């Protein structure tokens, strides 16, 4: 940690000293361009952290450039005002595009953003009254500090100005990526459903990344406009975005320094290739291909190998089954049932997967929902947690009606589920998995995160303590620094349980928690669920393991073909004739539908 800070300070000092050391104007220009591309790549990297590649990013660069340039030309305003205005306009454009496209994923998002940039390029080419079209817009005023007397003239002035902007960008993206916001973004990329069920709104956080990225691009554009003083629709060209994407990926996507390294390398490489004359672009393409094929993790990853590997975090004593701070749901009255489901019906085509199901979960109760395969248990879970909309019926959580709310809002209220199939954030450490899911408990806002306020640091430390407690409780205390995907199947189930406990729910929904566990692990799981109840939580679970159901639960609800056929204590259910018929069939020759 110490050496890294020293290296950083040395690099910063060298950067600041370069113009004084008599570096040629040509190289200063390239460094200024590096700075501009860093702003662009850093923004793109932020959105890519959430798994969304914006291949129309250059549109926002162009929008910021034209907005700032045109305001300067037509209204004679100082770039000191028009540059932020251009950045805001780019941000608003990003917000509008985000509203349209952030529901899209993967390749759809990529292709639609390319299309957006192309439309904007055509507008800039064809709206000649405004932009002078393909001729380009000349006469953009150079940058000045509010009055023309203080106009920036030399390359050195612009070098220091972009250094300030790039420094601010580095700080902002570093804070965002290393805080709970960065964890939320990575969670959306790694496992969106689990992120939502941990109280993270995928839409809200991808939008935050998108708007931040577009404001940065607009700032870069405004700077470019007043630095070069000439604009053309080429700014919107696809090639520009490709350059940015290459910088991000070749530098190291998802890392703080990756875009900076990428911007530096891929601003200078094409210049060095000028020696190759006609073969320049051919060679450039070949270098791109080789870098992408053989260094897909980015240069930063390989640079880091030279540095010392981080010291392993000391592992505390094993405290399996230790207590943890459970917390409680927000804004609920202590009276009444914890969760009540009234007459919910879900139809898939003509088939009613859940038919008029009602159930009540008392406070501190463990209730099982059982039934043969296809009885509608998981569908009922999906309705309760907002992953599936019901055709009829209401779901109440404490006093609040939560019918139709999105999953992240339901989780924010303190109703959290665990999935039937093992669901974790595979590329993060066990500790980070659980820390990510603590999202809803954070109280410091965006400003606190950005300024790295004391409250924020204090909160972060407190959360890590709590996460360690939870990991110890489920018996994974000794595995906190391992990558989640490296854990064994049983450990991943336990990690899933820890993730579900992280948002401090008051009601926990477990979908087949014992699936894939052996007999010993199942017994341990029963102890854990009992312990969870001991922390004041109510538990609703779906399970096929009858030993677990009958040995643990206070009451049991039985579903068959979407209809509730029985409800009662385990002993009553075991004797119930309808239940026996549903599970074992009857002696009738004609099978029931």
């Amino acid at each position, binding site marked *: 940690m110490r050496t890294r800070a020293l290296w950083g300070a040395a690099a910063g000092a060298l950067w600041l000293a370069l113009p004084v050391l008599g570096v040629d104007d040509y190289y200063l220009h390239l460094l200024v361009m590096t700075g501009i591309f860093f702003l662009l790549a850093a923004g793109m990297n932020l959105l*890519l952290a959430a798994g969304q*590649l914006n291949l129309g990013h250059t549109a926002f660069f162009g929008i910021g450039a034209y907005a700032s340039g045109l305001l300067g030309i037509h209204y004679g305003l100082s770039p000191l005002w028009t540059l932020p205005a251009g950045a805001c306009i780019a941000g608003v454009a990003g917000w509008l595009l985000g509203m*349209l*496209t952030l*529901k*899209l*994923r*993967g*390749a*759809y998002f*990529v*292709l*639609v953003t*390319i*299309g*957006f940039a*192309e*439309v904007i390029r*055509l*507008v800039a*080419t*064809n709206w000649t009254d405004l932009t002078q079209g393909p001729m380009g817009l000349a006469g953009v005023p150079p940058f000045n500090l509010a009055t023309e007397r203080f106009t920036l003239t030399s390359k050195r002035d612009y070098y220091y100005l972009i250094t300030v902007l790039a420094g601010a960008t580095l700080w902002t993206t570093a804070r965002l990526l290393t805080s709970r916001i960065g964890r939320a973004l990575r969670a959306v990329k790694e496992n969106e459903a689990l992120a939502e069920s941990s109280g993270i709104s995928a839409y809200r956080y991808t939008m935050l990344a998108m708007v931040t990225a577009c404001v940065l691009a607009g700032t870069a554009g405004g700077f470019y406009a007043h630095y070069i003083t000439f604009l053309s629709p080429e700014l919107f060209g*696809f090639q520009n975005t*490709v350059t940015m*994407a*290459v910088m991000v*990926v070749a530098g190291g*996507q998802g890392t703080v320094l990756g875009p900076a390294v990428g911007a530096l390398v891929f601003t200078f490489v094409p210049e060095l290739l000028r020696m190759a004359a*006609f*073969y320049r*672009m*051919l060679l*450039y*393409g*070949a270098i*791109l*291909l080789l870098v*992408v*094929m053989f260094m*897909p993790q980015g240069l930063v990853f390989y640079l880091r190998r030279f540095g010392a590997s981080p010291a392993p975090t000391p592992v505390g004593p094993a405290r399996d089954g230790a207590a943890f701070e459970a917390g409680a749901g927000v804004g609920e009255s202590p009276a009444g049932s914890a969760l009540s489901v009234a007459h919910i019906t879900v139809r898939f085509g003509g088939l009613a997967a859940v038919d008029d199901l009602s159930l009540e979960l008392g406070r501190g109760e463990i209730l099982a929902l059982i039934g043969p395969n296809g009885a509608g248990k998981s569908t009922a879970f999906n309705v309760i947690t907002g992953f599936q909309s019901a055709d009829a019926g209401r779901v109440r959580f404490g006093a609040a009606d939560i019918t139709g709310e999105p999953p992240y809002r339901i989780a924010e209220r303190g109703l959290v589920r665990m999935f039937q199939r093992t669901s974790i954030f595979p590329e993060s450490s066990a500790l980070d998995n659980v820390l990510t899911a603590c999202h809803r408990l954070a109280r410091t806002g965006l400003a606190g995160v950005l300024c790295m306020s004391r409250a924020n640091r204090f909160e972060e430390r407190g959360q890590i303590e709590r996460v360690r407690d939870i990991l110890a409780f489920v018996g994974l205390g000794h595995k906190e620094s391992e990558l989640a995907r490296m854990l064994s199947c049983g450990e991943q189930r336990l990690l899933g349980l820890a993730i579900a406990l992280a948002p401090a729910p008051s009601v926990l929904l477990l979908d087949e928690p014992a699936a894939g566990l052996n007999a010993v692990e199942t017994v341990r799981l029963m102890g854990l669920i009992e312990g969870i109840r001991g922390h004041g939580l109510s538990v609703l679970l779906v399970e096929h393991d009858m030993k677990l159901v009958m040995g643990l639960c206070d009451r049991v609800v039985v579903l068959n073909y979407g209809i509730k056929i029985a409800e009662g204590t385990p002993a009553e259910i075991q004797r119930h004739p309808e239940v026996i018929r549903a599970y074992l069939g009857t002696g009738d020759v004609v099978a029931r539908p």
Partner: protein
Amino acid sequence: MLAELVQHVVNGLILGGGYALMGIGLTLIFGIMRVVNFAHGELFMLGAFFLYTLFSLWGLNFFAASLLAVAGVALVGAIVERLILRRLRDQPIEIPMLAMVALSVIIQNAAILIWDPSPKSIRHPFSPVPLTLGPIHVVAIRVFAGAVAVALIVGAHLFIQKTRLGRAMRATFQDTDMARLSGVDVDRIYMFTFAFGAALAGASGALLGAVFWVYPAMGDLAALKSFAVVIMGGLGNFLGAIVGGLLLGVAESLGAGYISSGYKDAIGFVLIILLLLWRPQGLFGKRGLAR
């Protein structure tokens, strides 16, 4: 008035046939391999240049040259799959995407070095006198291009639905692991799919290259159009690519005729944005397929 409208629609359908061919190739490659082929435009361009070289420079018969050109592009596709994409199969989606972008830079600049950047025309053996049907006039080469496009689309459809290889492709599309367990040689299917998609792009390039001009950057716009086509139709959807292609061709033709030729190339993307407001998964796409 009406005659003019019909004329625009006919022109649009012929153009749309070319777009549909491009789109089918792109959508098959994405559907089966999860690769967004950013070099699709360059494969299109290679189809046109191979035809130009074989026919205009070396003097082969036009039809034989066309066939050989398409076969040549298919070969390029197979090599690209073997040497590049096969190594990147386990990477996240943006890695093969960027590799294909890099490949497109390489192919386009190689084409500039080999054939120089000036536009060339192919002196095809069809009469320049337009065929006339009532008030509508279409030159023979366009009729030929339209007919070949239709034949290729139908052929591709029959191939995928009726043959053993086509069935293996569909199986791989639905579930790669299951297909492999059932004895499908998935490596071969991937290679074949990419070559097949490349051949369709090459055929489209040869046809439209014979109608319009041939130049190294001709693939840029064509690639953008085919992206629009597959988003409209839903990524991975065969029928969607056909309908999307024809729709885009007609919309552009009408837009250029009645609105503004400067914004002709934006029409596809404006259509997409309108479509997304209504159906985010494309015309025929299923929810969740985009992942």
